[in-house]
C-alpha cells in the first residue's frame, strides 16, 4: 500500500530533481506520441533536443535562435514567477506582451522618420508602460473590488488581440504599405532597430534585458525585504498579514512588475525578430512563459535554464516539422505534457512516499 506523508519542509533535493525527471518523462511520453504518429521516436527526440545545438548544418542557424526565443520567455516568466510565488495569478501575460509591443511601436512610429538616438530608449519606456498599464487593470480591480485576477487578466488577452487587429489595419498601418495590414518595419528603421549586441549570437537587447531581470529577481527575492514579503505571502498569507505585509501593495507591485516585463518582451520582439506590428504578432509566448516559470521552480536561475530549454523545444520542433513533417501542434502538446509531468512529480518534493500499511493514529 502506497501512502503519502507530508514533509515538514519541501525537500531541496527533490525540488531540484523534479524538473530533470519531468523532462525525461516528457521525452519518453513524447517518444511514444511520435511513434503513434508514425515517426521514429529516437530520431524525433534527437532532432528536437540535440540537432539545434550540434548538427553541423543547422546549428549555425539555430544556435542564435535559441537566445532569440529564450529572451522573451525568460523576461515574461521572471515577472510571472514573482506573482506566482505570492499567490497572485497573472495569466494574461500574452495580453500585456501585445500591449507593450503596440505602445512601444506606437511611441516610435509617432516620431518617424526621426533618427534621434533617444527614440529606442523612449520606445522601451513606452513598451514597459503599456504592459504595466494593461496589468494594472486586473490589479486595481482586484485590490479595489476583489475581482478574480485570473479571469480578468485572461479576458484582457482577447481584448488585446482585438486591439492588435485594429491597430495593425488602422492606426499603425504602414502608410506606404499599399493598404496591406501591418505597421512599418521597425527593424529596418535604424532609430528603432533592436539589433544584436554581439553579431551572430542572437543576443539582442531583449535577451540582455532578460538576463538583467534574472539577476534583479534573484537579488530581490534573496536580499530585499520585498522579496521576503513575496515569499512569506505565498507560504502563509495569514502570517504575512501579521508581519505587517500590505497585500494591496504587494498585488500592485507583483502584477505591475510582471506586466511591465511582459510589455518589455513584446516591445523588444516587435522591434527585433518580429519587425512589425501585424495581426499575427501574438505568438503565445505569454502562455508558454507560464510553463517556463513553473519548470524553473519559480526561481530566477531555474527560469533562466527552463527558458533556454523551452526555446530549444521551439527550435527543435520547427526543425522536426521541416525534417520529419511533425505537425506543429505536436510540439505544443509536448510542452503541455512537460508542465503536467512537472506538477505530478512535485509530490516528491512535498511528500515522502511510504510503503506499507496505514497506521491507525
Amino acid at each position, binding site marked *: 500500500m502506497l501512502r503519502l*506523508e507530508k514533509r515538514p519542509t519541501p525537500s531541496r533535493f527533490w525540488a531540484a530533481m523534479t524538473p530533470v525527471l519531468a523532462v525525461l518523462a516528457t521525452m519518453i511520453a513524447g517518444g511514444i506520441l511520435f511513434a503513434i504518429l508514425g515517426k521514429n521516436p529516437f530520431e524525433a527526440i534527437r532532432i528536437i533536443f540535440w540537432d539545434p545545438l550540434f548538427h553541423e548544418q543547422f546549428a549555425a542557424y539555430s544556435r542564435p535562435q535559441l537566445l532569440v526565443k529564450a529572451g522573451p520567455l525568460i523576461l515574461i516568466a521572471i515577472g510571472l514567477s514573482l506573482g506566482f510565488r505570492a499567490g497572485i495569478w497573472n495569466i494574461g501575460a500574452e495580453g500585456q506582451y501585445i500591449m507593450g509591443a503596440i505602445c512601444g511601436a506606437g511611441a516610435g512610429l509617432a516620431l518617424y522618420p526621426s533618427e534621434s538616438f533617444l527614440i529606442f530608449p523612449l520606445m522601451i519606456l513606452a513598451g514597459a508602460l503599456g504592459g504595466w498599464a494593461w496589468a494594472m487593470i486586473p490589479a486595481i480591480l482586484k485590490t479595489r*473590488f476583489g475581482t478574480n485576477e485570473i*479571469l480578468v487578466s485572461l*479576458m484582457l488577452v*482577447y481584448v488585446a488581440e482585438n486591439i492588435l487587429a485594429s491597430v495593425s489595419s*488602422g492606426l499603425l498601418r504602414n502608410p506606404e504599405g499599399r493598404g496591406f495590414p501591418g505597421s512599418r518595419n521597425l527593424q529596418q528603421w535604424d532609430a528603432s532597430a533592436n539589433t544584436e549586441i554581439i553579431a551572430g549570437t542572437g543576443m539582442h537587447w531583449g535577451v540582455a534585458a532578460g538576463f538583467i531581470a534574472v539577476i534583479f529577481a534573484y537579488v530581490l527575492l534573496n536580499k530585499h525585504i520585498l522579496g521576503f514579503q513575496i515569499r512569506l505571502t505565498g507560504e502563509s498569507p495569514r502570517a504575512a498579514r501579521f508581519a505587517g505585509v500590505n497585500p494591496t501593495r504587494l498585488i500592485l507591485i507583483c502584477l505591475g512588475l510582471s506586466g511591465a516585463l511582459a510589455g518589455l518582451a513584446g516591445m523588444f520582439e516587435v522591434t527585433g525578430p518580429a519587425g512589425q506590428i501585424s495581426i499575427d504578432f501574438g505568438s503565445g509566448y505569454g502562455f508558454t512563459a*507560464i510553463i517556463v516559470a513553473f519548470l524553473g521552480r519559480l526561481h530566477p536561475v531555474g527560469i533562466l535554464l527552463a527558458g533556454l530549454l523551452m526555446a530549444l523545444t521551439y527550435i527543435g520542433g520547427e526543425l522536426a516539422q521541416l525534417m520529419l513533417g511533425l505537425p506543429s501542434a505536436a510540439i505544443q*502538446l509536448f510542452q*503541455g505534457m512537460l508542465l503536467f509531468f512537472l506538477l505530478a512529480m512535485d509530490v516528491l518534493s512535498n511528500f515522502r512516499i511510504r510503503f506499507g500499511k496505514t497506521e491507525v*493514529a
Partner: protein
Amino acid sequence: MDLGSINPILLVASLMVAATPIILAAIGELVVEKAGVLNLGVEGMMITGAVCGFIVAVETDSPTLGFLCAALGGAVLSLLFGLLTQYLLSNQVATGLGLTLFGLGLSALLGQSYVGLKAPATPKLDIPVLSDIPVLGPVLFSHDLMVYLALALLAGVWAVLKYSRAGLILRAVGENHDAAHALGYKVVRIRLLAIMFGGACAGLGGAYVSLIRVPQWTEGMTAGAGWIALAIVVFASWKPGRVLLGAYLFGGITVLQLNLQAAGVAIPVEYLSMSPYLITIVVLVIMSADRSRAALNAPASLGRTFHASH
C-alpha cells in the same frame, strides 16, 4: 447601416443557441466547484470535446455519437486533472492552467487533418404545434435537442444540489472536506466524480460549438468560451439559476454584436468582437464588489488541497 435588418425574434432564438455551450460548461464547472475543486482547465476540456465530437461525428456521420464521444473525451481529460490534484496533490490553479495548454495542443494535433471539413447536420426538433406559435414558436420550440438537454441538465443539477442527499454530500465536501472526511465520506472519490462530470459537460459544450454553432473545426475555436464559463460561475455566485441568466446575458451580447457587425454599424469590427469579454469583466467587477455576499456563497474549501493524514 441598417438596424432594421436585425430581426428581434431571430436574435432571441440565436441567443439561446449561443448560450448553450456556455451553459453546459458552466453547469459542469459549478458542480466541480461545489465539490471544492477549482478546475481552470475548462477551456482545454471544451476544445478537446469539440475536436473529439467533430472527428467522431465526421467519421461515423452521426452527431449523436459525436456528442457522446465529446463528453467522454472531456471526462477522460478531466480525469488527468483529477489524478494530479486529488492523488498527487498538485496545485489546482497550476494544474488547471496546464490542462488548458495541454488540451489546446492535443486538440490541434488531433484535428489537423479535419480542418475545412463540414460536420454532419444535427436535425432541429421543430416540435409540432408548439413551433407554429407565432413569436414563441421560433424562439423557444424549434431548436436542436442539445439546447433542451442543456436546460434539462441545468434543472437537474439544481434539483440534485438542493433536494437530494447526494447533493448535500457534494456540498459538504466542498464546504469542509475535513468534516466530510470525519463523517466517513470519500472526499477524493466524490471529488473525482464531480471533476469527471465537469469534464463531460465541458466536452459537450465544446462539441456544441464544433458540431452545431460553427459547424466546422478550426484550431482554438472555442475562443475563450471556457474562461467565460468560469467567470459565469463566479457571476452566478454558485447558483444554477443564475448560471442561466449569466449565459443568456453573454449569449445575448455575442449575438447582438455579430448582428451589429452584419448590419454594418459604424463601430469597427474589432471593438464589437471584444465587447463580450469586456462585458464579462464588468459583470465580474459588479459581482465581486459586494464582498460580503461573494464570500458567503463561495464553497469554503474551494481550491484547497485535501490530504487525509490527520
